[in-house]
């Protein structure tokens, strides 16, 4: 569940991938069909004054599939598609499949993703207050109190040439923050079908 919720926020980022100086501009710009990138997640633990680094790679499709591969500190692959969430634990080689019909919350998650992936400013505006605090950065603040509990705000930072996302910053409660910094971003790369399969055990 926590994994799925956090990955949802990443979807959000790629739903708004594009460049513009106002939220509406950013959302209106064309988005690539597939985005692939490497990432470094840095989890800031406020109380401990400590950072935890998680590295890996991801592939996101506009039609709703996401591959989230973590290489360190532990190996895992998570695939989300329309029907299910598949998680492969690279350490134990165990596979867990959560189907939408058995876990209603996965459906709720999907519905939220649909909203975000639509890139429809009206739909997003209903959920978030959208601002551009500085050039190339989109700031989203949840309107819903329940969502605010999960994250205070999300910031999406575009690369200097505005062709890709450079980073996503999720501020949970001021003290605890999560930054996902992307590198080697490829728009519409050529993918093998294996990308949407879990690794063999």
């Amino acid at each position, binding site marked *: *569940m*926590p*994994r*799925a*919720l*956090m*990955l949802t926020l990443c979807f959000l980022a790629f739903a708004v991938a594009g460049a513009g100086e106002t939220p509406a501009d950013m959302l209106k710009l064309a988005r690539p069909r597939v985005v692939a990138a490497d990432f470094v*997640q840095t*989890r800031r*633990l406020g*109380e*401990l004054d*400590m950072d*935890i680094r*998680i590295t890996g790679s991801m592939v996101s499709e506009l039609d709703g599939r996401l591959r*989230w591969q*973590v290489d360190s*500190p*532990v190996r*895992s692959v*998570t695939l989300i598609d329309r029907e299910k969430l598949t*998680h492969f*634990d690279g*350490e134990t080689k165990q596979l867990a499949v959560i189907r939408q*019909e*058995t*876990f*209603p919350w996965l459906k709720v998650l999907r*519905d939220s993703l*649909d909203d975000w992936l639509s890139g429809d400013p009206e739909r997003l505006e209903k959920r978030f207050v959208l601002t551009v605090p500085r050039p190339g950065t989109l700031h989203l603040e949840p309107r819903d109190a329940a969502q605010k*509990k*999960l994250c205070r705000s999300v910031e999406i930072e575009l690369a200097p040439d505005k062709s890709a996302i450079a980073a996503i910053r999720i501020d*949970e*409660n001021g003290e*605890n923050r*999560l930054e*996902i910094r992307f590198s080697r971003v490829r728009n519409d790369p050529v993918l093998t079908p294996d990308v949407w399969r879990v690794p063999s055990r």
Partner: protein
Amino acid sequence: MTELAAHLIRACGRHRALFLGVLALLGVLAALAAVFRGRFTNDLDRLFPATRETRAVFSLLHDAHLADAVQLEFISGSDVTRHAAYLEETARKLEKSPMLRQVTFRYRSDDPGAELASFVALAPRFLTPEVLENCSPDAAAKNALKKLAFPAPGLVRQARMQPFGWERDLLTRLRELDEATGMRLAPEFPFFVTPDRRRAMILAETSVRLGDADAVRRLFAELRRCAGPLPEGVELRIISGCSHTLGNEEVLKRDAAISGGVSLVLFLLLFLWACRGDRRALWIPLLPLYASLLTLGAMTFFFREICLYVIGLGGCVTGLAVDQGIHVYAAFHGGDAERRTAALGLPMFLSAATSIAVFAFLGLTGISAYRQLAVFAGLSLALSAVLALTALPLLLDRDRERRRILPLPAAPGTGRRSAALIAAAVAALAVPAFFRVLDNADLSLESLDGTPEKIRAGELDFRRAWRRTGGETAVIASSGADGEEALERLSGIAADLERRGIRPAMPPRPPRRVQAANRRAWRTPETAGKIAKLAEACRISCRRHHLPEKFFDPFFAALTAAVAAEDFSLPPMLEHIDRKMIKTHGVRAAAVALLPDTPENVRAVRAVLENRREEHSALLSRGGFQALIRETAGGRFRHLLVLSVGSALLLMVLVLRRAGDVLLAMTPVAAAWAAVVLTAFLTGFRVTPAAAFAAILLTGLAADYGIYAVCQLRRPEELEIRDPILLSAATTVAGAGALLASRHPVLFGTGAVLTPGILAACLAGVFLVPHLARPEGKKTLAVLGAAILLFVSGCSHTAPWETYPQRELLAPRMRLYPDAPFRLQAVTEASFSGRRFRFVLAAEIDPGTGKVLLAGVDPGSGALLFDGGGKPGEAPRPGTVLAENAPGGLLKFLEALPGDLRQIFISKDAKPLAAEEKTEYIVVYSEKDVLWLLFRDGTAEKRGGGFFSGAWRAEYRDGGRRVHYGRRGPGYGYSLDLEIRKLWCK
């Protein structure tokens, strides 16, 4: 004692006819009493104290009919669903069988969408009208649009019939139930099919009694008749507890044929060899049987119901008395037959009295079956001893020819000292082996099940095919006059458990009383007004969202009809589950709920049942049963066992009056136990309850050998014990040795204990005891004692830490982490409540103040799972994503985690005090009840909180980079595996 025995023998000899006549008359009266007065039972609950909990467990075991299930599995090499018509027909045939009930093949209708849509009809019975307050017509319209946008069949009906998600609670219950049962099914079929479509199943229940082998055979024939002829390529397998009845019977038949045949031949050979065909020797086993009959007759006047298994166990105990007859048989010959027989009075009295003392204490347990066993065994043994002394001489021929069993020289040979030393060494080796054998013991009830491997393999294959992997399931069962009363009671228990954070998987419907009350509330004019208002608001919302205005009308029509309806019917799937979980046949109805069989759940359920003083509800689970035995029976036996052994020893001290003689008398017992333990250690034999019971018999027999041996040393001119001991050992070994050919664990376990044990005890009684009694034997005794002490102390000595030579080398192995405040990051896997979860642990530990600040991060998404902690007593808080759904077990885990990290990472207070070298490791004793085991391979282990093995244990590898930590109950138990990736000082 000898004088009294001589007087008795003389008196009986004078009035031979009268005495035997009285005995015959008493035997007839006892037999009549046993037949006409005796009421016998096989109820296992008599084996437990008559507490509220045991009464409830055993009555619910009967009422819940959990053992009645029969599963017919159809295995096909290809797609089994091709044979759906055949399976349907077979189910119909099974339904007509008088031996079966509740036959289920289809568990839901063909159209799951229709079934889901029909849930609206349940709303006025399952829900209160308050749900209307939270219905948003706008959200309903939006959700309907979302559903319609999804290109899947059946969603239109679903969207129209489920606007407000009222079905979610029911679906959650079904999901919980699905998780609890752990069944693997292909959901696309309305009947039971595995996801690979190779197996199908028909479920049924039978009224056949589990232990009735003939009825089980008839049932299986009936099942095969109904299932025949099988389609080509399809195999039928019957999975049922009844298979164990037939399996056990099959194994026992084979064992009886082989073991019985072998022991019969051995007994005949012994009889012909030792007694030279003297038919009067047959009185030896008959007299203990007669004593048992007299006791049984007497017991019918004291006990309202006598447990049959007590008679069986007591009969085995009475078998000890055969040895008394053998001694009398050996002594009663020639002109001074009476004098020699009277000399047996003291050892016979003492051996019977020690056995009786042990059993007498069983009577103090307050448990019905043990009280009966104490009376039966004690009285039978006492009567057997008296009859052996008084009646047996009247029935024997004093002028028969004598023959020695083994023509061995009576004088000690030169090899005896060596033999004694070897025996001492063996006994000493047995001490460490004893603890290993005890560790390896299997005292579960399953260990008594002799079901053949083929049936077990079939059941395992069935479980693998039909069940998802996971832990055991526990059942909470409640009974009542009818199903509704049972369900009401169960619902009350579930409500109490939910307050403790435990949610059992309940039957998916509320009791009818609640359903009726809900429906009445829906029929009020206010509610009708609210429904009408909501329907109108929905129409407006539909218009606003460009949906047809009457889009939700089918929902409101179905709801209105359901409010007006009078029935309590359920959709097919719920009906199937309801029938499985609420059993209404039998004298009392029962309802069951399921939950994982974890120690925390067992504790919570037992506490709730105790608080509610539930007489008609019980926890039926492996874990619960073990806890019940441990708490209600275990505690009583520990004290009484010590008392009974102590009293037997005291009796020996009082009669023999010399501690040295008591020790000598106990030598065969030590030898017997050493032989059994070493045999078990070398062969890997696992101790079972049957073996434990055989060990009690062995102790009794071996102690008797010791008593006779000591008495012979005192009166060598009157007593000759070598032949009778050899003969009695030979008869026991002839019976027990043949059991080694058995496949049934009960028979094999008995043979495996008695055969080596009796051989060793007999040799010790005949050779070792006389040797130890001589002056040179004292040296052997000293060697024996020293060897035992050496092994008990672990072949090593403890040295103060300050003077221990290797302390400089060992100290760094216990200083794995800095003494100054430090930080670490570790990939951590926690296992608790049968679950595992992995997180990245970030912690700051201050060994000076004991402050532990920590956080857990999901290693995939980076989500914060928990953070906080601090001073001792402060627990971390679950993160936002966990806070709402954190199970009770997780919260307890978080509470315990900081304290456990202190135990793992802080060692500075545990100052080493002493070291002791063992074979595989060095033990370092420290302050604060902590000890270190430093292994030769570099592994270190820290234990604490307990005397022997400790309440917690941390194992360090790679210089402390990898840690396995385990924490045992009775508190909250779990384990942690940490792989430290980073560690640095602040």
